């Protein structure tokens, strides 16, 4: 009986401690893409400060909806929310990490970084106008590469996704036909191709279907060692997707705090900038000062201590300049 009582006592004390800790919780919801890095940061943050971050990766759409309804401390979205909408819903917005979209191909004999493409050819492939790999528009970019006269299979995402939003925004800027016929969005009416569910779905189809091309999140391409292509950026250089070229894109882009950092990181002007990237954003309810300070403290900590973790998980940390801009934005809104 005594041991039972003692056990009961110990458990009660232990549980009450966790209850105290649980009281200090930040609740967030939204984009699935940054979920791994947020949860890794949250784990370390809880170890050092005892504050728990509870992040539900329910999708960007859900994240925007939940913060609009004020049911969470912060929302997260892969696509930037336009300033007008932010004002209407009384929200604040800032970038947290950078991600990028990479084109991956499966052409026997072609290795990573060998195939060169430009925005025009990518657009024509996804419109279904370039149908074979030895099309002159691809050949002229790759005079030394032996390209087969085989039919191209286009692979795209079937689920709504921020990756698709970034990629279709790129295509809309690449050629007028795309903008007119298809447009940009998290899900679009694809002219050609098959749809894979999630990055893993697209990657799997590309790996299995010969002579295919698809687009995936950079982290996914890197971890799965897919065959990526080089892309021509607006400065005229063929760049390869890497931490450096993504950071070059972020550093050269003009994120404007007045517009709540609303920016598609497409065709950034930097000499080595990768042309298809995007930041993933955090949304705050303007009037909830107290919970915002908690959230901002977490991201400030992550900006200072989280770069290594982010890189290990193949996310691109914000460049220092941009971090300072974000901090100034917080200060200006009285939450830092």
């Amino acid at each position, binding site marked *: 009986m005594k041991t039972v009582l003692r056990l009961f006592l110990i458990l009660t004390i232990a549980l009450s401690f966790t209850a105290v800790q649980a009281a200090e919780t930040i609740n967030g919801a939204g984009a699935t893409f940054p979920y791994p890095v947020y949860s890794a940061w949250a784990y370390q943050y809880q170890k050092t400060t005892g504050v728990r971050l509870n992040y539900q990766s329910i999708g960007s759409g859900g994240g925007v909806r939940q913060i609009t309804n004020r049911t969470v401390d912060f929302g997260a979205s892969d696509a930037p929310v336009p300033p007008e909408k932010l004002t209407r819903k009384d929200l604040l917005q800032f970038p947290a990490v950078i991600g990028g979209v990479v084109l991956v191909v499966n052409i026997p004999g072609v290795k990573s970084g060998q195939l060169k493409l430009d925005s025009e050819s990518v657009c024509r492939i996804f419109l279904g106008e370039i149908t074979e790999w030895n099309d002159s528009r691809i050949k002229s970019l790759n005079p030394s590469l032996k390209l087969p006269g085989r039919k191209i299979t286009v692979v795209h995402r079937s689920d*709504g996704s921020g990756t698709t939003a970034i990629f279709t925004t790129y295509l809309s800027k690449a050629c007028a036909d795309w903008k007119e016929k298809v447009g940009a969005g998290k899900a679009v009416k694809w002219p050609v191709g098959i749809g894979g569910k999630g990055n893993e779905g697209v990657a799997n189809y590309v790996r299995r279907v010969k002579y295919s091309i698809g687009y995936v999140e950079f982290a996914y391409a890197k971890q799965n060692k897919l065959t990526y292509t080089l892309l021509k950026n607006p400065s005229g250089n063929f760049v390869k997707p890497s931490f450096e070229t993504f950071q070059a894109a972020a550093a050269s882009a003009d994120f404007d705090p007045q517009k709540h950092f609303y920016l598609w990181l497409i065709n950034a002007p930097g000499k080595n900038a990768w042309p298809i990237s995007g930041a993933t954003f955090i949304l705050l309810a303007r009037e909830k000062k107290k919970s915002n300070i908690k959230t901002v403290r977490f991201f400030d900590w992550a900006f200072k201590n989280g770069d290594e973790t982010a890189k290990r998980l193949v996310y691109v940390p914000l460049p220092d300049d941009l971090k300072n801009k974000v901090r100034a934005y917080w200060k200006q809104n009285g939450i830092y």
Partner: protein
Amino acid sequence: MPLLFKKNPVDIFFSVITALAALSVVVFIAGILYILIRESSLSIERFGVFNFIFSTDWDPVRESFGAATNLFGTAVTTFLSLLFAIPVAVGIAIFVTEIAPNFLKGPIGVAIELLAAIPSIIYGMWGLFTLAPIMSEYIEPALQASLGKVPVLGILFEGTPMGIDLLTASVILSIMIIPFTASISRDAFNLTPAVVKESAYALGATRWEVVKNVVIPYSRLGIFGGVVLSLGRALGETMAVAFVLGNNHQITSSLLDAAATITVTLANEFTEADTDLYLSSLFYLALILFVLSFITLAIAKIFLLRAERRS
């Protein structure tokens, strides 16, 4: 309620509790229907019923939505999977009830029920990583080389075999619904009175003749009920299909082409549907599926009840 007349408080309490439990089901169904109608009202107003069902457009950017492509995918995968599953399932049921020796009946019965217990996501992953490559490398080229050469039938097998298409999805679905049809058919076969079967045997009928002329006619309605229940399951199956269907909003004549079903569209697009009309159209799709499932299950129930009354 005879229990209430006894005025025993425990009995009254007991009957009230059970009545509430039973009522809650009705309340839930009514609640779901109400929410579906309320949430889809925006889309119903915009597109109407007829237009929505027959429009093949599904364009989130321009906010023009129609259910036809989804209904097409749902109808084709469901029909094909039933086509593949029914003969196998009925065969299993005949073997278990009429042919198998007693020591085999138990293990086969358990195996069928285990098949039904596998979560659908596992079927989906198995389909994507194992079945799809087999389909694209062996089965589909073989089909193209044989049936694909037949004049009219050939249309069904056009295109590059990628293994991610209506055919693969239907095969996966049929494997998933076999246990349902098989176990209900088995129960229906077991309802055949032994006296009738023994009389047939006594008259010199062979096993095949007994099955064909006695057992199957006797349990036809039961089998039908099982089929319609499987139909309900096939209509609603999501994850397994999402992995191997290719998920394209299109109506295609080839079975080796990608398509989308209602449930797959919901699973794929719900999380990122950010405009009101988009979300409302997804609810509208769900409402259509709800009505479809309700009708099929109601039909199944009616037939099963009739079969039971007869025996």
